[in-house]
């Protein structure tokens, strides 16, 4: 059965300490179609980094949910975002992930567009016997309704009716600041991409990105390998990985923000293992003592719905693209400061490969567990998931002391030991999901009535 009220898919009852999510949220194909329209085409979605298109005429092809778009910097340096489809017969215009083109020419009938999306040539227009008004009409690429950036992160919205980006991000901006400010001279993607798919709903990654509870079970083999290395039982000495078992008694917590964003954090058992620790002098001057301290903590940040960072051993940037109700595409990059000293960059690269890569010692264990969950949702629908409860008894509405230290005003906060492995950060995404799905359904009803 389907609930006509989207809010019925999430039971949020703080007074009774209940937060339950209905399994169909991950497995109902009709809900997935609604998500594409109401979530991915209903709010701000991360596209790419400013530094991925640094020069005039640089472009980057990506997707907003199911929509293919071109992000392009024009000759004057302004950034644009167009639907990746020719105005003539609709063919996909660009098939390369990124590059530099003054002119995009359609393979089919040769219509051409400059890097600002303006139509600059309609092949054989003069012999085409077009009616006289044709030349004066708009043949330019269709821009997306909203495009903006925050500190080098470019976002777009296919829904014009959204607040300004900074308002949408709210105090989650500070979580992004804690990433960007690690590079006093800027941040860059480390060359070398990893693209992979997994056979489960996009929200499995969204949750896993702030899930500290699975580490000791899903990643048992990784943790034991790290332990073996520390004991000198492995001949592999090229990676410095901290023993995360040690952090169980250390302080940890999380913040959620309006509009689905969240951050979990924990003190780092061996902060000097982080490549960042080697450049902390300048970072402290650049960002201040308090923020510098927070940068050395492990922090997993989710910017709803498609951008995640995991800053534990090294810093990873992940984007999530839904392909089908039970299939998702991931793009994963190592992210580091511009001008990082060679030895620190080498450490960053090795740590990324060891843990985060799809060819690493952890990610494949995650993706297969996501698929197991997806199978479970098909197997038994109509039940409520119990995976949103850890930390329920200690959640604070509004800021706690760590939040005040950072100067942020989160919707909810948790502070405790890492061993709580709290599941409270997940809530933000599902509350935002309900909000966007409810808005979308109201919009659909309005349109149907007109």
């Amino acid at each position, binding site marked *: 059965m389907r609930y006509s009220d989207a809010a019925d898919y999430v039971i949020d009852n703080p007074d009774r300490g209940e937060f339950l999510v209905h399994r169909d949220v991950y497995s109902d194909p009709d809900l997935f179609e609604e998500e594409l329209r109401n979530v991915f085409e209903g709010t701000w979605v991360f596209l790419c980094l400013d530094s991925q298109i640094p020069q005039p005429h640089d472009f980057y092809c990506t997707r907003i949910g199911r929509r293919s778009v071109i992000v392009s910097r024009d000759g004057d340096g302004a950034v644009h975002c167009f639907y990746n489809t020719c105005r003539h017969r609709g063919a996909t215009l660009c098939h*390369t*992930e*990124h*590059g530099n083109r003054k002119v995009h020419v359609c393979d089919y009938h040769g219509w051409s567009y400059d890097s600002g999306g303006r139509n600059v040539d309609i092949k054989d227009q003069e012999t085409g016997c077009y009616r006289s008004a044709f030349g004066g009409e708009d043949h330019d690429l269709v821009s997306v309704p909203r495009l903006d950036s925050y500190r080098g992160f470019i976002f777009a919205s296919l829904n014009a009716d959204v607040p300004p980006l900074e308002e949408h991000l709210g105090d989650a901006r500070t979580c992004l600041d804690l990433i960007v400010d690690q590079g006093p001279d800027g941040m860059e993607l*480390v*060359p*070398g*991409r*990893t*693209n*992979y*798919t*997994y*056979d489960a709903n996009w929200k499995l990654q969204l949750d896993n990105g702030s899930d500290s509870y699975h580490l000791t079970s*899903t990643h*048992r*083999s*990784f943790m*034991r*390998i790290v332990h*073996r*290395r520390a004991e000198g039982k*492995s*001949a*592999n*000495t*090229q990676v410095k990985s901290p023993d995360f078992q040690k952090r169980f008694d250390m302080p940890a917590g999380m913040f959620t923000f309006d509009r689905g964003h969240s951050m979990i954090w924990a003190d780092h058992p061996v902060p000097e293992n982080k490549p960042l620790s080697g450049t902390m002098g300048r970072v402290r001057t650049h960002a201040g003592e308090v923020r510098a301290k927070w940068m050395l903590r492990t922090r997993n940040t989710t910017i709803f719905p498609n951008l995640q960072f995991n800053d534990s051993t090294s810093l990873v940037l992940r984007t999530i693209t839904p392909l089908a109700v039970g299939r998702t595409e991931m793009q994963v*990059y*190592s992210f580091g400061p511009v001008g990082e000293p*060679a030895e620190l*960059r*080498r450490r960053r*690269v*090795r740590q*990324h*490969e060891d843990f985060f*890569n*799809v*060819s690493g*010692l952890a990610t*494949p*264990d995650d*993706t*297969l*567990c996501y*698929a*197991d969950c997806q199978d479970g949702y098909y197997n038994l629908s109509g039940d409520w998931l119990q995976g949103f409860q850890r930390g329920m008894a200690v959640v604070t509405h509004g800021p706690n002391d760590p939040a005040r230290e950072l100067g942020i005003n989160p919707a909810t906060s948790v502070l405790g030991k890492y061993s709580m492995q709290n599941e409270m950060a997940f809530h933000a995404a599902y509350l935002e999901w309900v909000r966007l799905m409810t808005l979308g359904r109201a919009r659909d009803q309005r349109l149907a009535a007109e």
Partner: protein
Amino acid sequence: MDDSARLADGIRLLSREARYLDERQWDDWLGLYLEDAEFWAPAWRDDDTLTEDVNREISLFYFESRGGLEDRVWRIRSGQSPALTPMPRTTHLVTNTVLDEGAEAGAMTLHSAWSCHVYSLRDKSQHVFFGRYRHDLVYADGAWRIRRKKIVLMNDYIPGMIDVFCV
């Protein structure tokens, strides 16, 4: 040793490596590698170029010694990795092997095409990874062994799992 005899030796080693992987003879597989052997699969930087600097760019696999491979074998044997339980079945095909001319005595460089069929028992799915190998071999203690292996993976759109035994 003339080139054709050397090439025949090299092809025998490549075939043995494929067999050891597919038959899960992990110790025999590791034994083909020198202790300080380099194992490298660069990532793609973009549609047309591979990463080149292992210290400043990401690789799919980069091990500066056999220790990196030994970690992987330990993990396979641990039975504690969901991705490797049950262990996927593989079949490697290695072909079109050519030898670089003019090698020194006791050394050779081989270039091959490879594919690896992977059957995942967990979800009954199958996938073919494919690409090219470069093997640098040395003759030591009466046998050819691998000093360096470079793997180019052509289809780097990866269905959830890839490991050293899939390439």
